[in-house]
């Protein structure tokens, strides 16, 4: 029988890798939408999580809608409104970024193996996946210049945190906190949209390094 949980986790790793190598912003946002959907599907496949109550159902649907539809739609709108298509000259090149992804995964595996957490059956892969996603999110925030890509990095970081929550928690109790983080994220994306338009107005570009030139 196909183990759907593992397949979804591996697909999340695939999106992480693709996001490191993608030059076009629209493609990047689409990859993030896919990752959001995959990440919000994960708890459904965990043993002992399931669709226990009406509240849980509402939570999963909201999660899927925000991560998979709402945030990507807003990001796409931001990309369209400032009419930038690709990230040129990032701080770290694309080939190097892809290799960094490899290193992140390698260290995530070693970390998970040597942490010796008493995880429930089949949760170790979630932890590996979560650490890799978080590290990659952090890396994207550091290695790219455009504000949109940095927000996408933040988004990926949040996905990783959510996965860690999934791996460690046994019940739905943690989800309240998660939901708070998600709202934070939503606000962050909105603020990013506003900032992006303003940078674009001031400099005719959305490169955040240009902000260093600001004076009184």
């Amino acid at each position, binding site marked *: 029988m196909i183990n759907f949980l593992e397949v979804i986790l*591996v697909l999340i790793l695939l999106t992480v890798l693709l996001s490191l190598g993608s030059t076009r912003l629209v493609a990047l946002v689409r990859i993030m939408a896919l990752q959001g959907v995959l990440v919000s599907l994960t708890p459904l496949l965990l043993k002992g999580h399931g669709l226990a109550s009406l509240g849980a159902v509402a939570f999963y649907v909201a999660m899927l809608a925000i991560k998979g539809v709402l945030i990507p739609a807003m990001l796409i709108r931001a990309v369209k409104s400032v009419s930038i298509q690709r990230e040129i000259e990032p701080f770290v090149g694309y080939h190097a970024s892809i*290799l960094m992804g*490899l290193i992140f*995964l390698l260290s995530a595996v070693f970390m998970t193996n040597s942490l010796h957490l008493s995880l429930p059956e089949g949760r170790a892969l979630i932890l590996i996946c979560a650490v890799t996603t978080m590290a990659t999110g952090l890396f994207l925030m550091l290695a790219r210049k455009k504000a949109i890509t940095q927000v996408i990095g933040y988004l990926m970081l949040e996905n990783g945190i959510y996965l860690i929550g999934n791996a460690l928690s046994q019940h739905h109790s943690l989800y309240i906190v998660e939901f708070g983080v998600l709202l934070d994220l939503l606000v962050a994306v909105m603020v990013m949209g506003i900032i992006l338009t303003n940078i674009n107005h001031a400099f005719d570009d959305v490169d955040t390094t240009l902000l260093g030139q600001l004076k009184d």
Partner: protein
Amino acid sequence: MASFLSLLLALAAAPLYPGIILKVKAFFAGKKGPPLLIKYYTLWKLLQKGSVYSTSTTFVFKLGPVVSFAAAVLPLLFFPFAGNASLFSFHGDVVLMLYVMGMGRFFTVVAALDTASPFEGMGCAREVFFSTLAELTLFAILILFYRLSGSLSMSSFFSEGNTLTLAGASGALIVLVIVALFMVLLTENSRVPVDDPATHLELTMIHEVMILDHSGPDLALIELGAFYKLFFYAAFIIQLLCPFSLPLSLLNIIFFFILLALVYTAVGVIESIMARFKMNLVPKFILTSFVLGFFAVILTMGVLQ
């Protein structure tokens, strides 16, 4: 018996499938497209013609097509179609298969260089560079398969007991392998987004430019070899999709050949909806496939064993 039958069927049917790619592309363009058997007609037409050899070429030029055709057929003898035992198999035959295909490429390249045409030299450089990178991916996948199945022969990868398929115990890793292999398929067989088989400008060609000077039966051999190579990779991917454990081996074989059309359709769809990459983005594409393969290997160190 079943092994012979499936091999013969494979050798006979390989030129049929590229017709499917053309049909899919025609469908996307809103055209009727060439008939499904177009590649057979092309081969027949080419075989009836004579060959033209430039006076500046040597015997190497004539050797190229023959060797590359033989190198494309040979790996199929080791391939276990639809889970049937392959005709030949021994420990490590996968490595042999890959390097026999490498030898075929070498002779194509040497024959192309023999014409002393600058275009062909350029095509050779690209072809060799990209397939060197693709070899990384293939060997990452081999390392993974060796870890999972403890053997290095094609038929033991897919025999009973060793279930290197999506439905098997390590099915999640096979997802990565299938994506990586598909990227290698596109690279090695010079399809979009790496190379455009329909291009007419020598400067943008990779594979096509190396065979510009071949004509008649030589060209037919090269084309047929290319079909077999594509068939090999497509069959490899299909073999990873499902275990083919229907009770009757004949049913398995039919099922296998029907599923093969899936891979070719996917190639056709990609060819219709994507533009080819700029030349400098191709290494990134292949590198991504390598990292995918290596991701799978790393994951076996952690939990999925």
